[in-house]
């Protein structure tokens, strides 16, 4: 209980830092891209096209927009403060390091999830229509993407603590590992957030929507990943050293 007040204070500052900047507008534009696509299709007079729903949501949201928004918010939540020196005012307080990491993860992950849930639902309705089958697919995607938001943000937040090049390394990870390598080699799916998200979708969505190697284990894998990575980030923050200024 004694940690709740510091956590709330850190959460508020983190939310204001993330929301008060131009990056949020850019992220809203990015999250709005699937909605814009759905609107364009609707405006072209072609109506809902359920066949396009799954590949569009997966290709655009799961594979591209989700890791990108999580990358930006995840690295900004703590890495930016460590880089610009403002984190010193938080680090030099008598609080365990996880008390710093957890609210930052909650805020950055929550912000990413909130943007992408809205984007997924609106894009899903515009692309697939409101038939119960398509709505079920859309909701499955929204839930899975929300969970995936926290896993990705945890990874990028930890990267931001571990290195001042978190954004670049994170981008490389998202493009190379999640985008290309994971899935191309047997067994690598077990270490892919994208595959966890696909597993959750395949579990929640109507049968036949997606096939996944991890299936329902995606829930457990995502939870374990968040806990382990948060613990690693907290440890890394506990041994964080300011860079020499002289």
């Amino acid at each position, binding site marked *: 209980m004694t940690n709740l007040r510091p956590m709330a204070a850190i959460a508020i500052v983190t939310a204001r830092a993330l929301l008060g900047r131009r990056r949020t507008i850019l992220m809203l534009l990015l999250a709005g891209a699937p909605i814009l696509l759905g609107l364009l299709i609707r405006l072209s007079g072609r109506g809902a096209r359920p066949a396009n729903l799954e590949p569009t949501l997966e290709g655009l949201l799961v594979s591209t927009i989700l890791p990108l928004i999580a990358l930006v918010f995840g690295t900004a939540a703590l890495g930016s403060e460590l880089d610009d020196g403002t984190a010193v005012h938080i680090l030099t307080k*008598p609080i*365990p390091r996880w008390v710093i990491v957890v609210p930052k993860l909650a805020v950055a992950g929550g912000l990413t999830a909130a943007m992408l849930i809205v984007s997924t639902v609106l894009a899903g309705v515009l692309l697939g229509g409101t038939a119960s089958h398509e709505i079920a697919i859309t909701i499955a995607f929204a839930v899975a993407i929300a969970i995936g938001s926290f896993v990705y943000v945890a990874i990028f937040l930890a990267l931001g603590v571990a290195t001042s090049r978190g954004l670049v390394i994170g981008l490389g990870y998202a493009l190379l590992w999640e985008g290309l390598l994971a899935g191309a080699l047997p067994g690598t799916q077990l270490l892919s957030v994208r595959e966890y998200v696909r597993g959750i979708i395949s579990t929640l969505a109507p049968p036949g929507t997606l096939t996944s190697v991890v299936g329902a284990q995606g829930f457990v894998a995502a939870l374990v990943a968040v806990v382990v990575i948060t613990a690693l980030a907290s440890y890394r923050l506990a041994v964080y050293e300011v860079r020499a200024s002289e």
Partner: protein
Amino acid sequence: MMVAVSEQPIPQPTVQPTAQPIVLDRVSRWYGNVVAVNDISFGVGAGITGLLGPNGAGKSTLLHMLAGLLRPSAGQVLIDGRTAWRDPTIYRRIGLVPEREAVHAFLTGRQFVELAAHLQRLAQPAVAAAAALDTVDLAPAANRPVGTYSKGMRQRIKIAAALVHDPSILLLDEPFNGMDPRQRLHMMDLLRTMAGEGRTILFSSHILEEVERLADGILVIHAGRLAASGDYREIRRLMTDRPHTFRVRSSDDRRLAGAFMAEPAVFGTELSDDRLTIRVSEFSGFTRSVARVARDAGVRLLEVAPTDDSLESVFAYLVSRR
């Protein structure tokens, strides 16, 4: 306070963790092949201690190790007997004012200090923050975003945040940067008051005049080593390889100059612009003999003042001899 002028190759004695809240015990810190701090030991007790050194001497590295933000490569840093590295509980006792100006620019001054109060888990964060803002004379600007503050105001808001939990140890890295003269005087008075209440205050500064006016003792760091520590006037006395210079005014300077030339400790005298300057080898010997010499010469002394026991003189000597 300990007084010492250390020689570089001699290992420094281990400081026992006694009543001194800050203790460094044979502490070194290196970055790859670069040694930033080299085998330093000292203890700092209650009062104000100035940390001096040229740019790159290792002052910030030292302060960061004291604040638990850098791991010593060797040795240990103790705060109230606890290892500073990886122990966040030390921040209940420490208030740190970092040199970097970075603060959350979107927060108002009040919110910034209240954030510190919340993170310290104070019972009444708003009350504590208001008191800290009053202390640094920033209450009128407390509701403005920190991003609109001048450099001096940012410095003061950092000090308010560092003071909000009433720490017993205050570490300040170049605290007077950006402050105008009135703010400096106010801050010096504040630090003196806090030191008078028994707090331990260690501050770094590159402005010797500030240190001279404020500090009870100094720590001189040069090239990563502790060049000297203690009262700088005492350090000056120990610089026996450097003549002391006195300015003397008397009823007959010329006669007095001649009389002093017969004294074995006097290196030389110089008479110019109605001012007699005397260079001697030993400070205390001269001060003991000056009245006798004047009396024997039948000269009345009007003024005797050392001219080179300023902190600037001591600092220049310590830095130049290495």
